[in-house]
């Protein structure tokens, strides 16, 4: 080293600095591969499927004739399943997270719950399908119904809701709690009147991301045995003759958007592939707008709230 002249050292520095530039290019290139794949996927599907997107596509049942087939039973099924999922996962997840953050004593029970939540997030979704098949479908006798599917997806997104809620609660400074206690509020009053409202945007972000995940999940719902060809709707409350009960729809057979798309994709005819592309387009737009909404809420949150 000591023998190097200044010009040699300069050369060495330039050489090493060149690597900076090379790596920055490689990094940008790698990023572009991800971005371009997505663009290719989206434009490819749009080119194949966009012409199928019409009012009829949303109001027709699936059919053997591809040009008449639609996604009516699929999107209604998805909506109802999501309703069950949200009604289960949100209260359970938020309550669980509140317990872990505000109430839980430091002991081995709490440790077990925390490790559990972390590990559940890593369980493959199809395993939840097997759980639901054994438990909800046969043990509890819910059958291959909207209720079984909704509960399955609720368990699947439970860790997402819990983690997001915990993060939101944790970012609330302790002085808020101390202030509430100081004026005589109980723990629950503090939680319900202060902690939950302040963490609402964070919880909302987690719930939306979880729901976006659930709406695209196919494997667990196929595993519980959802049918791929449904040409009727679940009974509306109090409709029909004899009148359906208010909760009969929970136990109705159903199909959902991703399963409808899977069904069309696995057929050999190109015309059905176009239907699959159109259904995929609807699905992607739905999940992306939900994710984008979540990202936007989080962005606003970071900008606006300063404790």
């Amino acid at each position: 080293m000591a023998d190097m002249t200044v010009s040699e050292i300069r050369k060495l520095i330039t050489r090493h600095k060149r690597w900076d530039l090379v790596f920055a290019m490689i990094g940008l290139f790698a990023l572009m591969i991800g971005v371009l794949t997505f663009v290719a996927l989206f434009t490819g599907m749009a080119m194949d499927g966009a012409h199928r997107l019409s009012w009829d596509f949303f109001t027709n049942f699936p059919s053997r004739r591809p040009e008449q087939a639609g996604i009516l039973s699929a999107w209604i099924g998805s909506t109802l399943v999501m309703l069950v999922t949200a009604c289960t996962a949100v209260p359970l997840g938020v309550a669980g997270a509140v317990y872990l953050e505000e109430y839980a004593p430091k002991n081995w029970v709490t440790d077990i719950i925390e490790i559990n939540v972390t590990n559940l997030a890593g369980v493959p979704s199809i395993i939840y399908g097997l759980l639901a098949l054994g438990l909800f479908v046969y043990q509890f006798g819910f059958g291959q119904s909207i209720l079984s599917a909704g509960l399955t997806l609720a368990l699947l997104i439970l860790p997402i809701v819990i983690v997001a809620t915990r993060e939101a609660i944790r970012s609330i400074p302790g002085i808020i709690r101390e202030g509430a206690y100081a004026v005589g509020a109980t723990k629950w009053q503090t939680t319900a009147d202060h902690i939950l409202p302040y963490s609402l945007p964070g919880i909302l972000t987690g719930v939306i991301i979880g729901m976006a995940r659930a709406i695209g999940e196919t494997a667990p719902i196929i595993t519980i045995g959802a049918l791929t060809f449904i040409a009727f709707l679940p009974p509306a409350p109090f409709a029909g003759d004899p009148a359906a009960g208010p909760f009969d729809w929970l136990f109705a057979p159903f199909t959902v958007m991703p399963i409808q798309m899977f069904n069309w994709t696995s057929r050999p005819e190109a015309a059905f592939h176009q239907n699959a592309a159109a259904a995929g387009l609807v699905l992607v737009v739905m999940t992306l707008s939900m994710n984008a909404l979540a990202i936007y809420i989080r962005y606003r949150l970071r900008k606006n709230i300063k404790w």
Partner: protein
Amino acid sequence: MSADNFVSDRLARRKTRNLRERLIEVILFLAASVSVAVTVGIVAILLTESFQFFRHVSIVDFLTDTQWTPLFDDAHYGIMVLLSGTIVSSLVALAVAIPLGTIIAIYLSEFAPFTVREVAKPFLELLGGVPTIVYGYFALLYVTPALQYFFPSLPGFNLLSAGLVMGIMIIPYISSVSEDAMRSVPMAMREGSYAMGATRFQTAIRVVTPAAFSGIAAAYILGISRAVGETMILAVAAGMQPNLTWNPAEPAATITAFIVQVALGDLPHGSIGYQTIFAAGLTLMLLTLFFNILGHVLKRRFRQVY
């Protein structure tokens, strides 16, 4: 109202209030324990159904047989057949996702200008949010024909295109967790490196990456369990034919694709065919459990305390 009365009234209200507080705490605790119940449920269901299965099939056959034909008259139950499909497709996916994900993470954490990072991170998140069935459609109808253009002998269903697309799907998981790990490396370490005359690239590779290794390893493990458990891309694009192969250019069923295939049919509850999917599920669960434990070990082993 006398003062005496007033006090006892307050005390009574305090009592109901305390009772309500206790009740709420119990309810919240029950909600939190649902996650434990789910784990117990998964383990119980998988074990009981697999136990029934292993009363018909010996574990030795399960692990060593080279055929998987559970729905035929001449039934064979060699899980290696399905495992090979899972391993090959996961390896292809990781060969794409680990290098690209790591490079993206290093780039975003150490090189990218602020605006690029602010745009790229949400975009990558969106990439991770695309439903997997859509990726499956993409693999079957766009990537396979594109690959066939270069390799005309490639069959319509193959592990290669499914694996490649799965790799793209996993990139966001690996890059975002690795990037978080790198960003949490304290600035002082980078400054020390720059002060010694190191370039940006040298600092990134020799200082930041080793310091963040435990987090990066966790990201890889997360990617591996994603790949092993991925279902729809493989069910759509890799075919559902059980095939003992180590060649990614062939069609093959994975553990997950087999479960989907059986579930699409109509198997009676309690039959041996019904129990096979739980045995397959148990194998999958053990596989992901192994990687999760490995992840914990790596994380603890290489954790650096700043």
